[in-house]
């Protein structure tokens, strides 16, 4: 028993959600299904804290590594491990899943078993995606995450769910197809192995770098999503049930950013440097564009969804400036965005459960009837636009500092995006929270229940904690990011002129 926990720590973490799925298949009582699902997600959360405890912060390499031959003919392994980059994302996954279960406790009443199974499936798959050291394993579970999301959208979603689900699948599948091509390409070019660490050590010819990088980039850009490929996101987010939105925004989008850090940068450094200027401008455009989009929305969930596009712009901006501040900021931004946007979707879900409306114009004067809710909602909103003292600020500030080494104009434009963020969030607050209650529904709302408080309080605490004391998180990834940056540094000298050098 002891060795299972020490030598197969990650496997145990991965196994728990799948075991949970197996267990709830045999339970008939809905209440117990929910409890078992909550127990599994909480168990994983506790285990991930154990992972944190055993993690050696000064070591930049993979830790808790497990390897097992799977299909030896093709050199496919079951190999998992975590380093400073993936650790935080694994933590984020295990952190958000209990909230997904909790927030759908009352709002999901049909097909409870399948719904909980979907959440557990996504959790298990996501942990594998973030820890996989084998490309094939990575790709397989990458695909697996799509399926439960699709069903969550089309089975428990809003009125436009079918169209949203189809769009989501269309985009995801196109991305997967490109990703598959990229993986085959790197498999052939990299000496017929799927081992990610081994592939990262190899050097590739410029042509191969160009094409394989492009394919990887497109796949991850669709998932993240970056500017021209973002339109699946608002629809999927707004039509999905609350738990689905939290999973999508909180965890699934991070696969894109993680992909950039795990594959694009270490494997194809020259191609990354070649493409960087375009990607940086695209990121800046996404930040500003997402802000404008969110400003135009009349639907609460779409507003939050478009704000995600804007926030994800900061992630790519940070990653492709190739310096310590930028990449640390980007990873922090991914974690922070997971927490704040998850919290925002949670809060909007709590409103939706009461009024069954997502339209901003149906609200107004919520402050009067739900003061507790409003306190948390305001905190999440201001955290979302990066008010200093909340977690998003740290990430955005680091990204901006990192960007300032490349171009000042980009910094200014991105800060303009933050102003837009403040504008849409405060305008939304003004129309939803402040003012007089306009209809009887609003004036009869009940404030948060204990269960709902239990979901928002931890997130609020986290938001403030990371905002005021982020150094533990930064310490976790410091060594790995430093290693990555040093790896990139030798290629960075020949950055093309498209970006102004200050």
């Amino acid at each position: 028993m002891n060795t299972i926990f020490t030598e197969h720590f990650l496997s145990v973490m991965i196994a728990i959600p799948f075991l949970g799925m197996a267990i709830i298949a045999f339970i008939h009582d809905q209440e117990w299904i929910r409890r078992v699902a909550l127990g599994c997600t909480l168990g994983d959360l506790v285990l991930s804290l154990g992972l944190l405890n055993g993690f050696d912060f000064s070591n930049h390499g993979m830790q808790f590594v497990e390897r097992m031959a799977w299909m030896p003919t093709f050199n496919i392994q079951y190999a998992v491990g975590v380093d400073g980059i993936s650790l935080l994302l694994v933590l984020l996954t295990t952190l958000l899943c209990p909230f997904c279960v909790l927030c759908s406790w009352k709002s999901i009443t049909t097909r409870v078993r399948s719904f909980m199974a979907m959440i557990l499936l996504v959790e298990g798959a996501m942990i594998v995606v973030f820890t996989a050291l084998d490309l094939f394993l990575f790709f397989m579970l990458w695909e697996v995450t799509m399926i439960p999301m699709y069903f969550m959208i089309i089975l428990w979603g809003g009125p436009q769910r079918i169209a949203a689900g189809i769009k989501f699948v269309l985009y995801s599948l196109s991305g997967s197809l490109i990703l598959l091509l990229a993986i085959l390409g790197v498999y052939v070019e990299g000496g017929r192995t799927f081992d990610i660490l081994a592939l990262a050590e190899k050097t590739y010819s410029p042509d191969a770098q160009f094409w394989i990088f492009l394919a990887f980039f497109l796949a991850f850009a669709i998932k993240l999503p970056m500017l021209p490929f973002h339109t699946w996101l608002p629809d999927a987010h707004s039509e999905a049930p609350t738990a689905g939105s939290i999973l999508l925004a909180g965890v699934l989008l991070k696969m894109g950013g993680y992909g950039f850090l795990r594959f694009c940068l270490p494997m194809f450094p020259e191609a990354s440097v070649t493409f960087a200027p375009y990607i940086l401008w695209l990121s800046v455009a996404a930040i500003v564009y997402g802000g404008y989009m969110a400003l135009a929305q009349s639907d609460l969930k779409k507003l939050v969804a478009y704000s995600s596009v804007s926030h994800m712009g900061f992630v790519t901006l940070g990653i492709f400036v190739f310096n310590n501040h930028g990449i640390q900021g980007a990873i922090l931004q991914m974690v922070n965005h997971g927490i704040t946007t998850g919290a925002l979707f949670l809060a909007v879900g709590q409103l939706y459960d009461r009024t069954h409306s997502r339209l901003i114009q149906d609200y107004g004067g919520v402050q009067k009837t739900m003061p507790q809710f409003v306190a948390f909602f305001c905190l999440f909103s201001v955290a979302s636009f990066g008010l200093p003292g909340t977690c998003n600020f740290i990430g955005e500030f680091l990204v901006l500092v990192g960007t300032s080494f490349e171009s000042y104009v980009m910094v200014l434009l991105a800060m303009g995006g933050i102003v837009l963020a403040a504008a849409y969030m405060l305008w939304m607050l003004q129309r939803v929270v402040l003012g007089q209650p306009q209809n009887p529904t609003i004036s009869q709302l009940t404030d948060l229940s204990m269960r709902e408080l239990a979901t928002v309080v931890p997130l609020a605490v986290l938001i403030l904690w990371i905002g005021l004391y982020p150094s533990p998180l930064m310490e976790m990834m410091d060594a790995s990011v430093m290693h990555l940056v040093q790896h990139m540094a030798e290629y960075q000298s020949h950055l093309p002129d498209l970006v102004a050098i200050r």
Partner: protein
Amino acid sequence: MTFFILIPFLPLMAVLLLVLGKPWLGEQGHKIGIPAIALSFGFSLMAFMQVVSHGAFSIPLYRLIHSGDLVVDLGLYVDQLTVLLLLLVTGVSSVVHVYSSRYMIGDPRYNRFFAVIALFTFSMIMLVMSNNLLMMYVFWEIMGICSYLLISHWGERKSSAQAATKAFLVNSVADVGLGFGVILTYSTFGTLDIQTILAAAGSMQGTTINLFGWLGSDVSIQAVTLITLFLFMGAMGKSAQVPFHVWLPFAMEAPTPVSALIHAATMVNAGPFLLVRMSPLVILSPEAMIFIAVIGGMTALFATVVSLTQVDIKRMLAFSTIGQIGFMIMTCGVGAFVVSIFHMLAHGCLKAFLFLSTGNALRSVGVHEHESPSFPRHGDVTPSIWPFVSGALLLACLPPFLLFSGPYEQLWMAQPLASTQWTFWILGFLTVFFSAMYVMRGVLVLFYQPVSTAYVNGMGGQTIQPRFFSPIHLPGILAIIGIVGSLLLILWSWFAEFLSPVVGYRTALIPEEPSSGTGLQLILAVAVAVGGVAVGYVSLTKFAGSWFGESSMGKRWYVHFLNKLYFDEMYEAYVVLPTLQFSRWLWRVVDRQVFDALILGIANVSVGTAKWLWRVVDLRGIDGLVVGLGRNSVGMAGWLWRVVDLHGIDRVVVGLGQRSVGFARWLWQVVDLRGVDRVVVGIGQQSMGIANWLWKIIDIKVLDKHTNRQGEQAEAAGNMRQELEPRTLQHHLLVMIFWLIVGMGLLFWFVV
């Protein structure tokens, strides 16, 4: 020394207690807030003594960010500038807390109010104590959100909700400048620690920044100028300088104590504070200083004139605040940083006092805040007029005393631009004149309106008298403020000496001999102020309000200034609405019809292609081919059957059949009967002969003997075998079959 950490942390504790203990507190929030802030004030006094006797000290807190070479260590830094502001902030905050404990009675969000003003006090304390720019930026923004929360305190009113959003957004635009300034500072100096930056500032004068390098332009600007300008942009927002001033008049939607604390005495002073804090850096850039002075001067003039026209007393006070802060900014711009701080302290106390008196006055005539568009007039408020009048007079006379009495007058003469001096003089005098006028006007409008336009008052009776600020107490407080003020005036040179370690001087440019005629200037300035008061009084009593005169020109100007030169309308029309329209257009056209159409287009094209493939290729092509092939095949088959099968093969077969039969007959008749039969019969006859011969000779004579002997042996063996293996029907059958096969084989062999 470490216990000075309690100065910010007592208010923080109060916030936490108020937030967490909200359900149990009832209307008791002030019982937590007041002691915390008052104690904090006490510690500030101790810190003041400490700094007076031992100089600056610092308290490290913790490490906020460590990323490569970007290290941000939070810490408190207390020097001469800090302690003065600490005294101002905690002092005014304590008074406002006490005042609010009565003023806010009956408010549904009583505890929230106290929690937020305590949070505000905490963040303002942290701001003035922060040792690095990032920390300053953080608390700068937290103050902003506190301001937002307090302006929207009565958020049920639409105007209040809008004002809150407006205040924060205007500030967040300006804070882009501050944030960018912080980032520029880091990339120039490699650190964010303020003292390190200030120490290194002198050596950075040669450093330039090419801000728009991406455009291919090569315009390098001095780093110190750029940093100062961007930092100043943030200051312009927080301190409501033109063109970012629009939020402050609307911020008067907040409860009056908040206006006194945040929007008059403390938060809006953050801009001058920042400039003074960074003064060793600021003075390195004459260009930036000119800009600062011009902005400050413009604001001072503009706001004081506008305040003359406002009908809402709180708005009038707000514009006067803007004007006074413009004054402070202007003095910073000309290099007289100490004057700016002095004015900030005096103005903070006085303006807070004025606002609290206004709250008193409004409450005592029963007007809830300033809902009434017109002024409350001539009620039973006469007792509280004297403090207001005296405060007003002090405020009117303060700027001339400050600006034209100190030794710092030489500093603005040290400006590189010769005209600066004259600009400053003109602006200074104009501002002094107008501020004296509007103060007088405010007092008169509020209390001495002619009886003919008297306020018909039906609700004068229901007053809530704030506990400490009843009219009886006010003169006492005023007296204290007056004494403090005059003490400060007397101790002016001490004050300047005290602050000298923290402000920057442009030493090289100070002329050797200070200019003469200070006394004359002072007298002149006081005369101007008195003139302003007189004109204000006369214009109001004689012309009933509109001192712009009755001419059409005057009226036009009056309307322009009444509408604050249409800044709000212009922002609404040229910034806010276009942004919203642009975003909607972008969403409808670009996002829906271009980006979304991208994937939908691909999907539609795929489906279309599939349909085309199905319709054209599949149905017409392949299906046609198959059907055609089928038809052709059937036809072919028919043809084959008809032509080939019936005519060809059939005939051949039939012919062949007929011929075969004939051939068979011929074979039978000719070969079989005649040939083979005869051969066989012949062979048979001959065989019979040979057999007879063999039988006779070999068999009977030779073989019989052998056979008999073998027969006996065989019989014995057969007996044995019969016992072992009885013959069965199967045996017989098998043997028969065997021989049949052998026979047939032989026959076949023979025949073929």
